[in-house]
């Protein structure tokens, strides 16, 4: 990490004109940057400890989540089913919650804290406050996690086999919702912490442009506030009181809609730290510089504006929502492709610039000069490549009519294992190889293992995700313990159903091996002793912030427009849903998922008692020993 602020780029104007092929620029990664004065750990030890703690929280969730992942993969594909199919849904709920809420968001708050402090070159206002939000997040997620895991045992009256979407009228234990609420408040306070620190910096530097990384953190935080407002309403006003028995019914369509109001922007929340790393860290690792600071700002503004008014595209197949609302959502969704397409251009151009600075030539020959032996570089590049593939299947999902072919099939998890499961997760792992030494002063235990690990993740995911997409086209549903049915056979496309199952299982196994290597590498790295000389620099953009119109930095303006767009997209649908079904729904009952465990217990109790009685009689009477049936 470097002391350099992003802001004062001393870019030569020539470079902006001919940036991609500019070979006159002698070094590319040095100019404009002040000399680094050590790592982040050296400069901001208190903040480094917070970042380290968030990463460890993320890795713990990753360890649990991926372990459940391999169990599910083998169960679903029928390779090995050591657990019951009822437990599968407990595993699935935990896999979802631990990976997409806990792993991603804990890592995010770490990256953002690092990026903000680094780019402002200023400590957090008050680290005790920072530990407070960290504590809330940890406590909240622990409560939710315990509630889910308690589903494995009927000994305690806790359960939450509701998957991470918790669609009513499936009902979880109140602690599940309560834990989520506490976790959410923790993330809000984290955002507040970043804003406070930024405003303090602003008072000290009234005339400076917002540094790029800080800009990314601030816009994403606003997006998060907008997005989570609906989740908070859903949980606090409907689901939590309902699970406590304070209200009798909820409107399933309304709570679904509020969930997806949050549920789509959350995917960009996961993605934004990956984008931040691609924009600011990846070009430097490649030996290059970011192509354009202004365009990076435009991209983050577009995400702030467009991430939220699109959630209804998860509900194309919902009855009770008019076709017109779905069409509006689809149109917004398609425009949301734009910032990602721009990112593809900018990131590739920045990396190519780095390659040419390193002496690369030719139309594609420059690719050879890139630092492919560096796991941080290779991991992020492979993650970006996978994101392109995920973008294509995402276009199919977004297409309102072809979506009918794949909605709720395993195509959809195939898609998001490319996006959150690779673009985000692999970027996080790759970035760890670069970032961990900066926040701890400990060198990575083995970069070779790191390289093997990121390549394995890519290979395993390519196999698994491709087969999942193909099975989805056959109609195999997602979220099921046993996708084989009695009444029909699947058709054949890109291989038969069983053949694709084998591909999924092999891919999943490779992914699990990769996860084990990653976690082992981190643990072994923690055993290294601290050394000097690990500081890395982040280079200045070719086209710096002075090229960006000032209005881009007006985050209040963009936040206001974002809220307006959300109101335009959601006010009418939500009013219509409430008018149709009522605020608390057209009737119905709650279906507490804890009942499942109890009923199973009741079902099994007579057998178990009979068995125990037998054994007792045998034991007492010295009858047949070892006679377990």
């Amino acid at each position, binding site marked *: 990490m470097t002391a350099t602020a992003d802001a004062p780029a001393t870019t030569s104007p020539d470079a902006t004109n001919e940036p991609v092929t500019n070979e006159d620029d002698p070094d590319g990664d040095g100019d404009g940057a002040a000399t680094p004065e050590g790592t982040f750990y050296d400069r901001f030890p208190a903040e480094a400890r917070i970042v380290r703690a968030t990463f460890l929280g993320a890795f713990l969730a990753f360890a649990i989540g991926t372990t459940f992942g391999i169990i599910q993969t083998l169960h679903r594909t029928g390779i090995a089913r050591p657990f019951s199919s009822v437990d599968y849904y407990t595993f699935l709920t935990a896999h979802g919650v631990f990976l997409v809420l806990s792993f991603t968001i804990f890592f995010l708050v770490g990256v953002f804290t690092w990026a903000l402090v680094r780019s402002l070159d200023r400590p957090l206002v008050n680290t005790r406050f920072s530990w407070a939000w960290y504590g809330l997040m940890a406590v909240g997620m622990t409560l939710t996690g315990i509630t889910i895991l308690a589903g494995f045992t009927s000994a305690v009256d806790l359960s939450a086999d509701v998957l991470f979407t918790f669609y009513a009228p499936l009902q979880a234990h109140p602690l599940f919702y309560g834990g989520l609420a506490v976790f959410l408040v923790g993330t809000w306070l984290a955002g507040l912490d970043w804003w406070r620190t930024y405003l303090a910096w602003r008072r000290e530097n009234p005339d400076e442009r917002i540094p790029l990384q800080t800009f990314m953190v601030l816009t994403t935080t606003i997006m998060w506030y907008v997005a989570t407002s609906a989740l908070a309403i859903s949980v606090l006003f409907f689901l939590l009181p309902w699970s406590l028995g304070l209200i009798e019914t909820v409107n399933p369509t309304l709570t679904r809609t509020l969930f997806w109001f949050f549920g789509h922007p959350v995917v960009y929340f996961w993605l934004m730290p990956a984008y931040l790393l691609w924009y600011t860290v990846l070009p430097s690792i490649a030996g290059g510089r970011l192509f354009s600071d202004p365009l990076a700002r435009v991209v983050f503004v577009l995400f702030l504006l467009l991430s939220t008014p699109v959630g209804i595209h998860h509900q194309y197949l919902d009855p009770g929502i008019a076709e017109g609302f779905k069409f509006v959502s689809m149109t917004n969704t398609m425009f949301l492709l734009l910032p990602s397409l721009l990112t593809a251009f900018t990131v590739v151009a920045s990396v190519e610039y780095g390659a040419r600075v390193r002496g690369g030539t030719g139309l594609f020959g420059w690719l050879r000069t890139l630092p492919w032996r560096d796991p941080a570089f290779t991991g992020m590049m492979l993650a970006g490549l996978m994101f392109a593939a995920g973008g294509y299947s995402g276009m199919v999902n977004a297409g309102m009519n072809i979506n009918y072919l794949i909605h709720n099939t395993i195509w959809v998890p195939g898609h998001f294992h490319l996006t959150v499961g690779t673009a985000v997760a692999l970027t996080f792992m790759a970035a760890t190889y670069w970032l961990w030494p900066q926040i701890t002063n400990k060198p990575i235990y083995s970069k070779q293992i790191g390289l093997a690990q990121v390549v394995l993740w890519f290979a395993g995911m390519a196999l698994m995700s491709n087969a999942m997409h193909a099975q989805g086209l056959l109609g195999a549903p997602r979220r099921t313990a046993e996708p084989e049915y009695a009444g029909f056979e699947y058709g054949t496309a890109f291989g038969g159903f069983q053949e694709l199952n084998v591909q999924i299982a092999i891919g999943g196994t490779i992914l699990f091996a990769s996860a084990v290597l990653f976690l082992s590498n981190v643990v072994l790295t923690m055993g290294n002793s601290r050394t000097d000389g690990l500081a890395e620099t982040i280079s200045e953009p070719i086209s710096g912030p002075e090229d960006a119109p000032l209005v881009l930095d007006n985050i209040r303006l963009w936040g206001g427009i974002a809220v307006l767009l959300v109101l335009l997209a959601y006010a009418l649908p939500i009013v219509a849903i409430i008018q149709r079904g009522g605020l608390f729904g*057209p009737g119905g009952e709650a279906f507490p998922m804890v009942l499942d465990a109890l009923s199973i217990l009741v079902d099994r109790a007579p057998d178990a008692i009979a068995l125990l009685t037998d054994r007792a009689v045998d034991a007492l009477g010295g009858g047949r020993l070892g006679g377990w049936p």
Partner: protein
Amino acid sequence: MHVHSYEKIWLALGLGLILLLIGSVTYGAVGPGVSMVAADQPTVDPTALDEDDRFAEPRVEQVGENEYEAYVVAYQFGFEPDPIVIPANSTVTFMVTSRDVTHGFEVVGTNANTMVIPGEVSTLTVETGGPTEYGVICNEYCGAAHHGMEATIEVVPQDEFESSTGGSTDSGGSTDGDGSGGDQ
């Protein structure tokens, strides 16, 4: 703000792609007439379906010349009727609702697919082809035995349909497309 010419070209191509995608869906709606599951039915009380003449006795009923309606109830963990028998070479509108939690209704291998939400009635219209059989599955997690929730659709010749049902009860159908599909 400086935008490199390559960036401008890329931006234009990206916008072109977006407009193309939106255009293709728009064409699908106004050209071939692919329609979406929407809000065309009033809500129902999921706990009082036996007071609704469509769902009190789930069945397939003729509603016009070569037009049929299939009233289907999804529940933990099955569909009613099962099998759903519908006549070949006809237009069938499925009306599906749930009496408990949120389910899915997916005719496997086709694009006949909808969420089934308690309190709402999903409608989707399909054109059946020749006699055949389809699997129907619930594709939204609905509880501990979700994976066992399935049914079949039997598309039978018209005469067989009439003789088996006397014209209006308990029948099935095939599906292929929303709105106006062909056979799949």
